[in-house]
């Protein structure tokens, strides 16, 4: 079987990431396919790190423009394209936090109200408060622990891929997950005596996906 040399002969949907990256160096349609595969994942990642849809859109755009600008220089070297994209996103989010010097905020109301519509009002209020405490504690975790929780629970990635993205072994990922849970448990216990602080900014653009 011969390698397709012209864009017209290429089957983008069936190609793997490595093949698409090789094509993307000279073919914008191949980069478009990579974009379609990863835009939602990167958006989710950025959203949970920044806490609002507006900044998530802005940073997601920057991630893909930066990837497009540097895809010429990308060589695999054991790091898959997805890991490369997440690293770009991680760096941009870190810069964003540094530049703004503010806390990460997650608009909880839209998610909580949409995920608990069927519950009774009393139960809803209680669960709402509990969930807000939990997300508040997650927002206070170090960046790499937040990243682990996002990759595991939102992106649903296998441990091997999380390890490649975070440049750690699977054993180290397990250990980090354990320590993250322990820290969260302590943080929640400490919060029980403190009054609950509200997020400073709440997004009104609800886009929860039922999954």
């Amino acid at each position: 079987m011969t390698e397709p040399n012209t864009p017209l002969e290429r089957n983008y949907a069936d190609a793997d990431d490595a093949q698409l990256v090789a094509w993307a160096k000279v073919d914008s349609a191949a980069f478009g396919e990579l974009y379609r595969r990863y835009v939602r994942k990167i958006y989710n990642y950025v959203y949970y790190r920044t806490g609002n849809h507006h900044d998530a859109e802005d940073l997601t755009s920057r991630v893909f423009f930066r990837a497009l600008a540097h895809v010429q220089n990308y060589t695999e070297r054991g790091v898959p394209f997805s890991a490369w994209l997440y690293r770009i996103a991680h760096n941009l989010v870190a810069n964003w936090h540094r530049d703004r010097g503010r806390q990460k905020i997650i608009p909880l109301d839209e998610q909580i109200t949409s995920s608990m519509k069927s519950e009774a009002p009393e139960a809803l209020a209680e669960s709402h408060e509990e969930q807000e405490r939990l997300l508040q504690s997650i927002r206070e975790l170090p960046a790499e622990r937040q990243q682990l929780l996002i990759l595991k629970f939102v992106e649903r990635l296998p441990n091997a891929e999380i390890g490649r993205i975070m440049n750690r072994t699977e054993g180290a990922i397990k250990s980090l997950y354990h320590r993250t849970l322990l820290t969260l448990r302590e943080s929640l216990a400490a919060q029980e005596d403190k009054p609950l602080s509200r997020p400073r900014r709440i997004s009104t653009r609800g886009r929860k996906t039922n999954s």
Partner: protein
Amino acid sequence: MKAHSFGLALPRFRNRAAQRALQDLLMAHADALVSGAADREALLSPYGEETLAEASELLALAERIQHAMSEVSPSEQFVQQLGNQLATAPTVVPSRSLWGRVRHLPPRVQLAAGIGGATLTAGVVLLISRALVPGALESWRNRRTVTA
């Protein structure tokens, strides 16, 4: 003495093994949660009571995290617009200047290049000064001889 150190090492080894068992259990539980097949009873059955007692609170916490961190989606309009912008964006990266390229090198490479460059420059200056002014290094040579 040996028996004493062995007695100290054994609990540490047991601790480490218990920690590893706990970490395996927590990660297996998280995997089961995200795949939507969290059968807690089946998952916990191979583990001892000590591990289970320590894990139960953390497993409940993981379930709360999974409930709180649901997937979000960007708007279709945003996805479409960004896709169009990327499709029409120029893919050629403007070439960096020499200084721009040096700045992006790792610090140790920059340091090595700096030392190498300085040594080379000093050598060239020395050679030129010897060639152009024959007596330029005479006083320095004399001082070395006197010191020796």
